[in-house]
């Protein structure tokens, strides 16, 4: 064990009274200045005036007669400027050669073949749409698919995973979800490898070219912070409205994680391993494929897992632009208030996510085995079993149509019988909850919303800049200020502040309820495991399902929106708090016990301070989840926020406006993200926990 270096001496220099309170005083001073002069606060410094936002001197390229474009500054707002770019890419021939839109449509069209192929394999059989062959091959019968999944599970990690994989497929068949579930599966099976491949490729390129890595990080951060609808509309414009567009949007959504994980994984391969490779005389290509990538395998698998999860998380959203599968079925059931059936579909999505997650993890961790010698079925027992199952399933299906595709009469659905129960529960809760319905908006939420709407942009910007300065010096202050400048110039200030209000309130509620829950759960192993399971489940469970009960209990309005946001965004704060409290090094706990600390003291004086950086990262994630969910809560409605404006832009296919509004949300997220990360890093350093 290496000795931890002592913290540098200067950090221990006692601070004088004024120095200690310098930052709090600055913040309070700023607020005091505003409060003192708020009546004299000029209007332009409160809400950004239209004169600024509508006539920005943004550069336009005008393609005229000549080969090179000429530059003009006619003055416009940012949304129009974005739209000018979109129109250019849509209609103009670049250098007289090709139209960008045609290129992207052609590229998107390529995904049709793998998608159709996967669909043909698992549901429709060949030939299928673009896969044209002169003879017919039926799809894999469901009985065979269940068996094959079980064998794959057993091969990967034993009977538990076998049961999970086979059971999930059997669930899809028995609950009459075979077709949509297999459509979703085929989409994930196409989108996930493509996304992982692109991410891996970007990561490898970034390893080679430092400048690319530097350029890529902010772009990837932005892509992750951008609300879905920001790029769904451009996807519709540039790829079209179709099943394949859903796949493309899913890929776009999943690539950043994989690229980031690849960069980190490849960079953090231990020096010793690299040196061994050099000594063995590896060429640069061998260094990459035979040394770095195998050494980073486990971290890379985390990335692939994340990709699979994100692909399933996109299922519902991508159905807005044409993706078939479980997502569209879910939306349809919700529209009809068939909550029970929606629940069954939600469970199907969770089952698929968990199965793919566990399977891919198990396959990645599987060490190569020594093969016994002998006949084929001894050397390849799993392949043989798979072949047998396939043959038996095929024969069964040939004689027994029920084995090929379970007829609907033989499927079950308990959804219909759950619906009345849900209705009764909601009706029983309705009156007792009237207290919250009536008082919370009147005394807390409406005044708080008005307060947020009244915060002048100058004060908002100054507060964030000050926080940036405190946590990361003038550079961070500058970056944060630039984010706010963009938002100010976007001309959606009031809507932006309403969104900020929703996220802020939701995060406060998440902490108020999630934090005590996590502290309680972290005390015992059993509750820790239970909470981890709940977090996993709720994170993959389609959040759209919450929306309906929220509306039934609290009407369309702020309370339902907040409840929906909280139900989803509380997950990270709970998860990370438990993780932080449980992850305190054992020797520190033992030290505390030997010093005679009571359990309460160990919790509050030892575990808690050490866990604070971790908890802050959880809070950070909660804010990110909140920013994601505030868009979904737009489907409840009731507030004039950015979500509502994005929906309007979506209905009019206004790609530029959608992108602008999405960037507003993304920049709010990026600003808070940077501030909290910097704060957590500083705390960790102080605690010597690096």
């Amino acid at each position, binding site marked *: 064990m290496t000795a931890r270096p002592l913290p540098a001496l200067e950090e221990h220099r006692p601070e004088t009274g004024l120095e200690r309170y310098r930052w709090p005083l600055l913040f309070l001073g700023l607020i005091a200045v505003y409060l003192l002069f708020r009546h004299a606060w000029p209007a332009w410094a409160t809400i950004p005036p239209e004169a600024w936002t509508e006539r920005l001197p943004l550069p336009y390229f005008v393609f005229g007669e000549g080969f090179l474009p000429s530059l003009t500054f006619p003055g416009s707002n940012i949304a129009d400027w974005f739209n000018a770019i979109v129109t250019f890419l849509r209609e103009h021939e670049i250098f007289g050669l090709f139209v960008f839109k045609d290129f992207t449509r052609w590229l998107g069209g390529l995904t049709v*073949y793998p998608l159709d192929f996967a669909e043909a394999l698992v549901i429709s059989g060949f030939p299928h749409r673009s896969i044209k062959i002169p003879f017919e091959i039926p799809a894999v019968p469901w009985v065979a698919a269940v068996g094959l999944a079980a064998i794959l599970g057993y091969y990967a990690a034993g009977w538990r995973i076998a049961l999970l994989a086979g059971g999930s497929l059997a669930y899809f068949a028995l609950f009459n979800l075979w077709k949509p579930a297999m459509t979703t599966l085929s989409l994930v099976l196409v989108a996930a490898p493509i996304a992982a491949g692109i991410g891996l490729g970007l990561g490898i390129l970034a390893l080679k070219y430092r400048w690319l890595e530097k350029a890529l990080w902010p772009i990837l951060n932005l892509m992750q912070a951008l609300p879905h609808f920001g790029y769904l509309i451009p996807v519709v414009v540039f790829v079209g*409205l179709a099943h394949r567009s859903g796949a493309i949007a899913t890929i776009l959504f999943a690539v950043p994680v994989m690229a980031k994980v690849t960069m980190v994984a490849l960079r953090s391969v231990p020096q010793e391993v690299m040196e061994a490779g050099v000594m063995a005389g590896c060429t640069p290509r061998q260094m990459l494929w035979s040394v770095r990538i195998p050494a980073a395998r486990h971290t890379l698998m985390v990335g692939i897992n994340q990709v699979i999860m994100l692909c399933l998380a996109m299922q519902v959203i991508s159905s807005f632009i044409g993706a078939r599968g479980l997502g569209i079925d879910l939306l349809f059931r919700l529209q*009809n*208030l068939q909550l029970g059936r929606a629940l069954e579909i939600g469970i199907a999505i969770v089952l698929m996510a968990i199965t793919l997650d566990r399977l891919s993890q198990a396959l990645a961790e599987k060490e190569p085995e020594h093969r016994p010698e002998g006949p084929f079925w001894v050397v390849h027992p799993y392949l043989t079993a798979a072949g047998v199952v396939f043959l038996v399933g095929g024969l069964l299906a040939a004689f027994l149509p029920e084995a090929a595709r379970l007829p609907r009469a033989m499927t079950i659905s308990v959804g219909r019988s759950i619906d009345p129960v849900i209705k009764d529960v909601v009706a029983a809760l309705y009156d007792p909850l009237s207290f919250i319905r009536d008082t919370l908006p009147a005394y807390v939420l409406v005044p708080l919303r008005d307060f947020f709407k009244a915060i002048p942009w100058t004060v908002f910007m100054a507060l964030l800049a000050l926080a940036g300065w405190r946590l990361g010096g003038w550079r961070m202050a500058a970056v944060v200020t630039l984010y706010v400048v963009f938002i100010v110039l976007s001309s959606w200030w009031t809507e932006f502040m309403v969104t900020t209000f929703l996220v802020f309130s939701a995060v406060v509620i998440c902490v108020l309820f999630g934090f005590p829950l996590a502290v309680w759960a972290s005390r015992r192993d059993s509750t820790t495991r239970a909470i981890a399971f709940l977090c996993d489940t709720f994170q993959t469970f389609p959040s759209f399902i919450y*929306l309906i009960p929220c*509306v039934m209990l609290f009407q369309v309005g702020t309370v339902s929106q907040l409840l929906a946001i909280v139900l989803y965004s509380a997950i990270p704060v709970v998860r990370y708090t438990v993780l932080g409290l449980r992850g305190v090094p054992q020797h520190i706990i033992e030290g505390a016990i030997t010093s005679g600390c009571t359990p309460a003291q160990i919790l509050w004086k030892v575990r808690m301070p050490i866990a604070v950086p971790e908890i802050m990262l959880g809070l950070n994630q909660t804010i990110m989840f909140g920013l994601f969910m505030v868009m979904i809560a737009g*489907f409840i409605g009731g507030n004039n926020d950015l979500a509502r404006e994005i929906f309007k832009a979506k*209905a009019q296919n206004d790609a530029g406006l959608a992108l602008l509004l999405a960037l507003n949300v993304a920049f709010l997220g990026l600003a808070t993200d940077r501030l909290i990360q910097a704060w957590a890093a500083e705390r960790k350093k102080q605690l010597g926990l690096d």
Partner: protein
Amino acid sequence: MKPIKYLAAGGASAALFGLALAAGGAQAADPIKIPLHNWNSQLVGAEIVGRILEEGGHEVEYVPADSGAVYEAMCEGDIDLVHEVWQGAFGVAFEKQVSKGCVVDAATHDAKTREEWWYPAYVEEMCPGLPDWQALNACAAKFSTAETKPKGRFLGGPAEWLKKDDERVAGLEMNFQVVNAGSADALWAELAIASEKQQPIVLFNWTPNFIEAVYDGKFVEFPEYFEGCREDASKGINPNTTHDCGNPKDGYLKIGVWEGFPEKNPEAYAIIQKINFNNLDIAVMAKLVDVDKMEVEDAAAKWMDDNESKWRAWVEGSSS
């Protein structure tokens, strides 16, 4: 290294290239793309239209699509037809594309549509004088909630449907505040619990719609719609404001197709031009799913069994 690796890579890229070339040629045999939205009559109707086209020997493909974004997609040719174009909700988007020339107004159904403020029947007892709008305005306080106090709360449709309810409230100087639901789901969820609990509610609704089969209720009667009501302040009962009228009571329900479709597939276009649903058809389609709890395909099959002579005429009339 291993030559087999390169061979495989070469083969794969050659195959991809071949597929890419095939993509260009595959255009002619494209299936007819029909959008699926998220309300029942549309889903059943889409299935019926699809089956009718299949009867006529055409291949169809269903594409889930946002009902707002679909007009732009039809303009691009990503979608071939929309068989439920509601004047109130989508008229503006549809007519914009028609005037651009990329969408063709193919046919008009007999069905008449209406979109208006609506209340479940039990509300009549709480607010005597309904369905008159002035009576509604007089008991606005009964509809108020914590977020709209002291004004009454009108639960409007999603903001992107652009129903101009705020303008109407101002135009008629009503004591109401419009709260826009974010989706149709939110509208029905709130109606479900309100009618269970007999709470006063007034919300956006339309006909033909499954709601009329499930809940008893009426539209609020506003001053009659007239030409210029939304543009000319001096006209209408309030001489100082625009939007001092209700929505038109007999809006159209149309079929729109992509401009390139008639040329590409004239036979299918001939069938589409004959397709004609009336109010009862649309209401039955919705009812089969919502009240009788049938699956969409079964509902479509049932309607086709019951109306065989009707749709046969559309198919056969065009092939002869």
